Each structure stands twice: as C-alpha cells, then as structure tokens.
C-alpha cells in the first residue's frame, strides 16, 4: 500500500495524518535532497517500479537456475534496445490516454513514418534533417486530424483512431509493398551504437520520456491534460479550452509514433510497410500505459509509470528468451501479466476508496 502512504502524508500524531509535508520540510531540507525526495516520490507513486525490481529479481533467479547469466552486458543491451521503440510510442500514448482519449492508429503511423522518413532520406546525409522534420510533421498532421475528429465531430476515440488506422493502412498498401528508401549511415549507426552495454538510442527514449513527463508535470498545459482527462465538465466550468488540450494530446501522441518509426528505420536500414503492425504497437502501447498505472479513463497516471512498464515488458521478454521459451508462449504469458497487474491495481483502488470515504451515510 505504498501509494496510500505517499499520497496522504503522515504528519504529527496529533493531526489526522493529512498535514502537508512540504510546509515543514521545505525549510529544513536542502535543494538536493528535495530533488531526491521528489524523484523518490515519483517512483514510489508508481508501483510498477517495485514490480520491475521484483521481476528483475525473479528473472535473475530463474535464469541462473536455468544455467544462464542474467546480468551479462549483452542482456542489458538487449533489454534497453527493446524498450526504445515501444517506449517512445507508449510515452505518447500516455498523454493521449491521460487526456481521456486514446490512439489506435499508432502502428500504421509508425510504418508510414519509417517509409516516409527512409524514402526522403534516400541514403543521403544532407537529407537527414529535412526527412526527420518532414516525418514529424506528417505525424503531427495525423495527430491533428485525430484530435479534430474526436473533439469537433464528437466521434468516440476508439472509432476515430481506428478509422484513421484504416486510412493510413490503405495509403501504405497502395503506395508501398516492400522495404523502401534507405537510411544514411549516421542515422543507421544511431540505431546500433553503444556506449559499453548501453545503446545510444536509449537516450532518445529517455529524452522523450523526460520532456513529455516534465511537460505533464510542470507546465500549465500538462496540468490541463490531467484536468480534462479527470473531469471534462469541471474543466469546462473552470474555463479550460478542453478541445485544444485533447487535440494537442493527440498531436504529441502521433509525433511520438512518428519518432518511433524513424528509430525503427534506423534499425532496419530502410522503411518497411509492416514494421508497425508486426510489433503490435497499438495494443502494446496501451497495455504498457495501463500497466504503468495510468487509468484508462484518464486523469491519473505518470510517464514514469509507463517507462517502468515498458522496462518490465522488456525484461520479461528477455527472460523468456534466455529460457528459450517459445515466442508464442511468451505472448500468452504477457497477456496473463497484463490482466493480473490491472486486477491488482483495481483491487487496491477499491480498498483505498473504502478507507478514504469511510462512512458515506445519508
């Protein structure tokens, strides 16, 4: 129940436990320890990180018993490498879901982005930056369209983004049927360079997570995302431009998807029409978001949670590979893990609600 402890900070025994820690501790703590404390808050608020530690532990035990080495550097690279693609798109999906919406078009957008990017780059260094800009712009346009359909046309996000997925699929299948374009060397090496066991691309993931996460928690826009996702009516009554917030959330989500497409192009050397769908990024990103503690209905959750969930999924993958588990069995176990985790969250919330509201007599 670490969540409860953190969120309702205990004060002195004489209070009812709801005193504000900042008021007293701010004066006595140094800034550095305040930052440490804040980071600890961030991670403790998302139980998925505890789960990550747990899974790493179990994984290590299991793998060692099986005769392998868990903490080999190749493994670490593997885990981190796997996290990048899903991680970036999941971070974007987090924003969309927090705002009360969701995006099922991401896998096709990823494919499209890889194709557009690689095609524009055409193997030329000079085209690298323009290609990236163009691809991100395409992503933004798709996000804008999604956002408009959801807000102005009032179409349920499930249907709206599903429709967009079909539109993109049609376009892709019509124009591309094989790997296209090629990626210049510098970009390709980005996908493969490592600093020791740590792939450079992880910094892209970390950077995106940091930027988006900070935006959500520190900017006015971020605050509004939580408000709109939490209760649209309250937000409207408070004067927020809810439509703009949702549209912007969709744009962020799609730009992240486009970025993932570019990254995958660097790994593959070119763009491919199936890279997005083969990875199942649409449902996987939503699963990662929910696993990370974000509510499917919106208004609650953090990027930190999504990052943890992505890592958990990557570690699970890795452990299964080490155990040479059949890939299909892996998938089945993933399904069980997702359901179990959300069930645990649901039970905890139920327990917490009963404690907080106590007697609700009329």
């Amino acid at each position, binding site marked *: 129940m670490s969540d409860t402890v953190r969120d309702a900070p205990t004060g002195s025994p004489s209070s009812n436990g709801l005193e504000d820690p900042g008021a007293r501790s701010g004066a006595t703590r140094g800034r550095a320890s305040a930052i440490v404390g804040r980071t600890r808050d961030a991670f403790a608020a998302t139980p998925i990180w505890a789960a990550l530690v747990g899974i790493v532990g179990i994984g290590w035990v299991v793998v060692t018993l099986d005769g392998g080495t868990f903490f080999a550097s190749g493994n670490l690279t593997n885990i981190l490498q796997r996290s990048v693609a899903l991680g970036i798109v999941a971070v974007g999906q987090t924003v969309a879901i927090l705002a009360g919406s969701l995006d099922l078009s991401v896998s096709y957008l990823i494919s499209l982005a890889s194709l557009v990017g690689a095609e524009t780059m055409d193997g030329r260094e000079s085209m690298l930056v323009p290609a990236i800009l163009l691809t991100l712009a395409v992503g933004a346009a798709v996000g804008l369209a999604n956002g408009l359909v959801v807000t102005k046309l009032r179409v349920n996000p499930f249907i709206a983004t599903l429709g967009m997925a079909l539109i993109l699929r049609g376009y892709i299948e019509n124009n591309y049927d094989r790997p296209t374009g090629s990626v210049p060397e510098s970009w390709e090496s980005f996908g493969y360079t490592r600093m020791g066991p740590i792939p450079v691309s992880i910094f892209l993931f970390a950077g995106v997570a940091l930027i988006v996460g900070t935006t959500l928690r520190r900017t006015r826009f971020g605050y509004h995302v939580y*408000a709109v996702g939490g209760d649209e009516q309250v937000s409207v009554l408070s004067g927020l431009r809810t439509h703009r917030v949702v549209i912007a959330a969709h744009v962020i989500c799609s730009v992240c998807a486009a970025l993932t497409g570019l990254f995958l192009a660097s790994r593959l050397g070119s763009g491919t029409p199936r890279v997005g769908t083969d990875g199942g990024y649409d449902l996987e990103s939503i699963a990662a978001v929910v696993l990370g503690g974000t509510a499917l209905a919106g208004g*609650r959750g953090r990027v930190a949670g999504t990052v943890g969930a992505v890592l958990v999924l990557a570690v699970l993958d890795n452990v299964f590979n080490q155990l040479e588990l059949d890939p299909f069995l892996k998938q089945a176990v993933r399904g069980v893990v997702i359901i179990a985790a959300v069930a645990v969250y649901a039970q905890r919330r139920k327990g917490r609600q009963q404690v907080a509201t106590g007697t609700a*007599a009329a």
Partner: protein
Amino acid sequence: MASGPDVPHHPDGGPAPGVGRADAADDDAVGTAVPRLEMRGIGKAFLGTVVLADVDLTCAAGEVHAVVGENGAGKSTLMKVLAGVHPPDAGEIVIDGVPHTFHHPVQAQAAGVAIIYQEFNLLPERTVAENVWVGREPGRFGLVDRARMRADTQRLLDELGERSFGPRTPVRALSVAQQQVVEVVKARSLDARIVVMDEPTAALADDEVDQLLALVRRLRDQGLAVLYISHRLREVFAVADRITVLKDGRRVDTFSAADTTAGRLVKSMVGRELDAYFPDRAAPDELGAVRLAVRGGANAVLDGIDLDVRAGEIVGIAGLQGAGRTELARAVFGAAPFTSGTVEIDGRSRRLRSPRAGIGAGLGFLTEDRKAEGLVLGQSVRDNTLLARRSGAARGRRRAGTTDVEALTRSTELRAASLEQEVRFLSGGNQQKVVLAKWLALEPGVLLFDEPTRGIDVGAKAAIHDLMRDLARQGRAIVMISSELPELIGMSDRIVVLHEGRIAGELPAGATEQQVIALAAGHHLDDVDETGDAVPGGGAPGDDAAGGGATGDATGGEPRP
C-alpha cells in the same frame, strides 16, 4: 422594488444595526452607497414551467444573506442564474452598481461571483493546490510556478484558519467537509466578492458544521457578500444577517435575522396548516401482525437498530443528513447489509445480503435518487415496470401468469402518453409512479420509501401520499424516510428518529416538529417544550428551530441540469 407583503426589511441591503460584521472595511455602510449585489425582478422558466418569478434579492459586502424555502421553491435555480449557469428570462443582476449579463459561469467568475455547489466541482486525482488554481495556474512561459502555487494556497488556507490539510494533499484523500473547504479556498482565490453556498452543510457532521459556520463568518468579516442557501434553520440563525424566504419561485419575505423567529420563517415557507392535507392515519385496530422486525442491526454506519413495522402501518424515519437513514433502508433491503443483528420478515429470520435476497423476501425499495438508481431512463414505461419482475429475484413469490402492466400503471394513476414511452420524458411524479409500479409488480409485503416525493410538484405529492396509505391499508408494512417534516409527521403512524447511526427515540403520531428536531439533533425531549421555545438551559434561541427542514435534507427537489 419589493414585491410581496409589507415586511420588515431594510432598503438597499444594509444589515440591521448591531448584527453582523465587525470590521466592515467597505464603504457599504447601512443605507449609503451601492450594495455589492442586487438581483432585480429575476424570472426563469424551463420548458414552459415557471421556476422563478420576479425575485428581488440584495446583499451587501460584509453580509451573510440566507435564502430559505421548501424543496422546489427555486433557491438553487436563483443561485445558478447568479452564477452564470442559466441566463435569466427576465430581470437583471447588478454588481457594485454595474449591470451584468452572464452567459457562462466563467463570466460570472470574472465579475467576482463564486459559487460552491453541493456536488463539488473538484478533480479528485489532483492535489488541493492544483484544484484551487485549475485554469489559472501561476507561472511564466507556460511553466507552472509550483512553489508559488503552494504558497498562495497555504496562505489562503491560513486565512481561513484551516489546519488539517495542506496544498499537496490529493483531494480524494479528503473528507467531504475538507473538500468543501477546498471549494471555499477556490472561491477566495478567485478574488470573489460574492460567494454563494448551496446547502453547504448537507453532508457534514455536527462538529464540521460549526467549523463551516465559523468559516462563513470569517468570509463575511473579510468583506464578502455571502449568500447562504439552507434548509437548516439552526444554522441560518447562527450565521445569517438577513433571511429571504422563497416559495414556489417567488420572494415571499425578507427578514432581518435578529427580528424574526424560526416559527415565522416556517409559516412563510410553508404557508399552510401542516396537517390538513394528508390522508388519515391508521387506527390502532387497523394494524396487523409485525411484518418487518430488526433486532440489534449494526454495520459500519449503524448500531443497535431495533425496529418493528406492522401490516397497515407507516413508520417514518427521521434524522439529520448523515444520521444513517438511507443506510438503514439499504441494510434492511440487503444492498448494504447489516453485519450483525437479525432481520425477520413475516416471522421468518432472513439473511439479506443482496438486493436479490431482499426482493426474494418480499421487500421493495424506492431509492432516494430515482433517476440514478430507480429507473432505466432509456427504456419504456412497460420495460421499467417489469424490470424487477423479470430479474427473477422474486421467483419464489411470483404467482403464475403475466403481469398486467396496464392494471399496475392504472393503480398508480400514472399519466403517460403510452406505455411504450421512454421514461426519461416523464415528469418527476410520473417517474416515481413507474418506480412504484415496478415494485408493486412483485406484490411486496414490505415497502421502503426513501424521500418518496422529492422533486415532485404539490399535486403529484398528494397522489403519492394517498397511494402510500392505500398500500398500507392493503396490509403492507411501510417505512418512509423523509426530510420534509410536514410530510413525515403528516403521514407517519409512528416516527423513529435516528441520530449518528443509532435510534435516538420514537415518537407517536402527531408529534411536533420541535420534538422530532430535538431528537434528531441529539437533545432530549425534555429540553423542548411544546411552543418550540427552549427550556432554559436547553440551548440558544433559534437553536431548536421549528423549521421545515432543520432535519434538513439538502439535495432539494431541483435537479442539476
């Protein structure tokens, strides 16, 4: 500008001398300058039904002006007009001498009006500070200055004397009373000059009420104009400078609090003799065997509940908000069961752990909120009437054959264009009749009514009262929860009064409102004599108010559109 009988009130909104603010820094002294708020001739109708007609109301800076009235009198609507939720059909709103027309709540906010609704406008997953400043977060370049936000919020909390929580607490961890304080802080943060509080103490326990009243006085002392809507006359007299009575959408009286009594207020609010309009009660020989018997019923909210209800009897359940009345009904029905104690229906001991069990034992439960809990709004009258019957929960009790929906709806005197009409198009009274028909389809032996005539107009109320008495005469045992004292006293053969989850006492038919209120508030009957004045030592004048709602239930008759 005043319409209605000639009553003592001061022109231009100044409070009576000697009452109210200690340090009025404002220039709104008695009889001079422009009052902070003037509402003139406000009229409003919804879909042809007139809700407000020619209502005037003024409030000065540093004044607490209470607005009282029965359910459906128009209090909430008047406040929503002021808050910009509904533009008025007639009349104008003048703030500090400047006329305003509001088309959106944000405009009212900008003009300095802050309203605190009964159902709070809060984001439970966000912190106190985040809620207070939503949409107006301080900071530059799009970044939120969190330190400043917290400091500003803490400052406001300090100004209001709130110490039990801080800016960083998530709202969902707060109690209802604390959440209300957050709403007040929000209002202060808006630099509100006029604060409206709609039934603020509805969900509060006694000690929390006192804290809130202290808060209200603080706001007044800070120079705000405070409008306070409430049923609870004890609180009204504790905090208001002036009191306006609304009845059926019109302003009937405006009194200065010092110059009037609860009795006069009630007479203004109700305007008729209490007993004249209810069906006759049961004579002792009309009562049959005990159909519902609870012994030692207890759960998280209730304790030591002993209750007997006989065939032919209507037992009224009284109590303040939070006393456990609805919980009692839900426990008996099985929706929120007792954890200890016994329940006997027609002499048989039953474990009622779910609504299905309750229904199977012959119980029916008409809930407080018929739209949220009693009806499936998108379905027809026919389907709603058959809802409980079709659930199969009453299988053991069902007589063979199909239910005659026409006969059932006729017996409840339902007026609908057809049985296939969707229930959401019906009036409140007719909707309640559908709910009743639903339960009658199961031929229940015991019926539990929770606020049976809430939100229903006078004519339909009478019809439902008659129906209830008829049902009792047919040999059923009826339990009725009501916050409307005239109804409670007029209908009940016996009144059981709850106080903080326990039975405070039982009163016979024809008890006085003072007696009911005394018990509900936790006093002893001896503390009150029959004229309603406190026996010396029993409490301050105005405390034991003979009000039509001091056992107030607050979520009035007006749906929140």
